[in-house]
């Protein structure tokens, strides 16, 4: 049984990384850490795809002269390149938002931000400049 478990070692890693990533996104209050969690989550998916692509006994999918070769599937790699780009864009956008949030709220902890929002909620007509003054350190 250990051998069959080891045979799908990759999938175990995928699964564990996925859960770690998801847990970080849900549990951590720091906005930056959430993005890190998201990245871990997305990376696990990359690993999943690439593992699909590997064929037992397959070699790199590059045409050389010889026939009679089993090639690994190159398509998942292409898909993952796309997904990595998407992930990079998401991370970049997330980080930009975090920078902006930091400059406006003065903190990147979700608790602090919620607390400030709650105060604002009762004080509905606060434009952003006034709040920046109010909370600037």
């Amino acid at each position: 049984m250990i051998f069959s478990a080891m045979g799908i070692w990759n999938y175990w890693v995928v699964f564990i990384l996925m859960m770690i990533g998801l847990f970080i996104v849900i549990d951590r209050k720091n906005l930056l850490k959430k993005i890190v969690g998201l990245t871990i989550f997305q990376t696990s998916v990359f690993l999943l795809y690439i593992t699909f692509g590997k064929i037992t006994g397959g070699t790199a999918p590059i045409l050389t002269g010889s026939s009679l070769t089993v090639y690994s599937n190159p398509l998942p790699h292409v898909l993952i390149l796309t997904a990595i780009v998407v992930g990079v864009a998401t991370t970049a956008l997330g980080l930009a938002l975090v920078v902006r949030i930091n400059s406006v709220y003065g903190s990147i902890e979700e608790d602090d931000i919620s607390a400030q929002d709650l105060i604002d909620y009762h004080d509905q007509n606060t434009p952003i400049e006034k709040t920046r003054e109010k909370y600037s350190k």
Partner: protein
Amino acid sequence: MIDYLLIHFPILIVVFPLMMALIVVLISNNFLSWLVCLITTFITFLISIFLFNQLQDVSIISYALGNWLPPIGIEYIIDHVSIIPIIIISGIGFLATIFAYKIMPTEIDSNSISKTYSLWLLAIAGLLGLVTTGDAFNLFVFLEISSLASVTLVAMGAKKDRQALIAAYNYLIIGAVGATFYVIGVGLLYAITGTLNMNDLTERLADIENNRALIAGFGFMILGIMIKAAIFPLHIWLPRAYAYAPSAVSILLAATATKASIYILARILFSIFSTSEELVNYTLTYIILPLSICAMFAGTIMAIYEKDIKRLLAHSSIAQVGYITLAFSVGTKSSIAAGFIHMANHAMIKGGLFMAITSMGYYIQKRITLDTLSGIGKQMPITFFCFIVCSLSLAGLPLTAGFISKLYLIKASISSEGLWLGFLILFSSALSLVYLWKMIEALWLNSKDNNQPKVKESPILYSSLLVITFLNIYFGLDASFIVDSSFNAADMLIGRR
């Protein structure tokens, strides 16, 4: 030359706004960027109408990207099912762009306006690509394009209220998690079938029975799409995102973004997995149906307790999405048609409501709540009238488009599930009248301290609003266009059953 273009319309409808988005960001003059954006959305709308006409002769238009033939290449499909969201998205995009001209400068920094329009076009291109594509992974790409563009658009509302930033952040994180779930699902399906093309997937899935990977893949895909479509209880990101976004963006997103995802849901359930009937029926009856009923009531009840108008309308959107998914979950041909009818009508209704509220907010200058609205309806009779018509349409009262969709929805539910479902739908409709009436009363009757500015309505603001209101009434009287298209769509989706 035109003939050459005509063949490529299926891809042009996506690529044209995409290209123009890149051009608009380079324009620094605000008026010019709006103008280019307007022309682009107008041409996109024309293309969608043209595609609709073409569909009268051919039932499916299939376009192979880069001449790589499917199922190996990526395919774009325009058929009776996808043409409905295409027309909705391009139409609303055009009307919202007209409306945005006056509204954008009040809420966004003047040197960010052309960038906002560029993102606007990007979002529209992403949504159009989402509904046109016939390849599962390409769908993920467009899902993310539209999602990232929407997030940035929402964050642009930070000038007016900084809570837009945290709303956009939440939208981003939750949306990315959802899209990643979807991609896991696609990966699992790819592993067992070897193909990504939706039609091919359908064929190959037919041969596979009782495979855990299939069930897992199905589950992940549905979960991911449910997050994007804001189906209860995965809707948390929506109220704040729509409430704090710039008003023009709320109009665009509220009317289109969730619709595209619901369309994808219908595709997955009824098209790709059409052969795994047991699995799909189980999901529909035990998961989507109860969640839709919860959505209807949760959305409506939360809206009743909201004071902030845009959040109220966002909660109401959750309830309306519940109606559409309810229609799909009943699963018969007439109920799926009812779902599409409501999809089309709700886009018009929500678009109209947001436009009306935005027009009023333009003059009030403060955050629009039930208290700040007091009595302004009397000074803006045209806008108020349009608001009333769209509210009555939302509640499903006769002579409006909303009535038609309610009628078909209830008829389909009573026919297959029995009276109890019809009662639930009508009960939540009656409840929705409570918050609608609160808004109408707030607009009509003054509160104690009446210090409303004297306003004179501006034609630019209410012209697209009038168009949408007119459409609401027109499709309430002569619904044959929408009803026939929806029945065609339902026919195509589950033809034999």
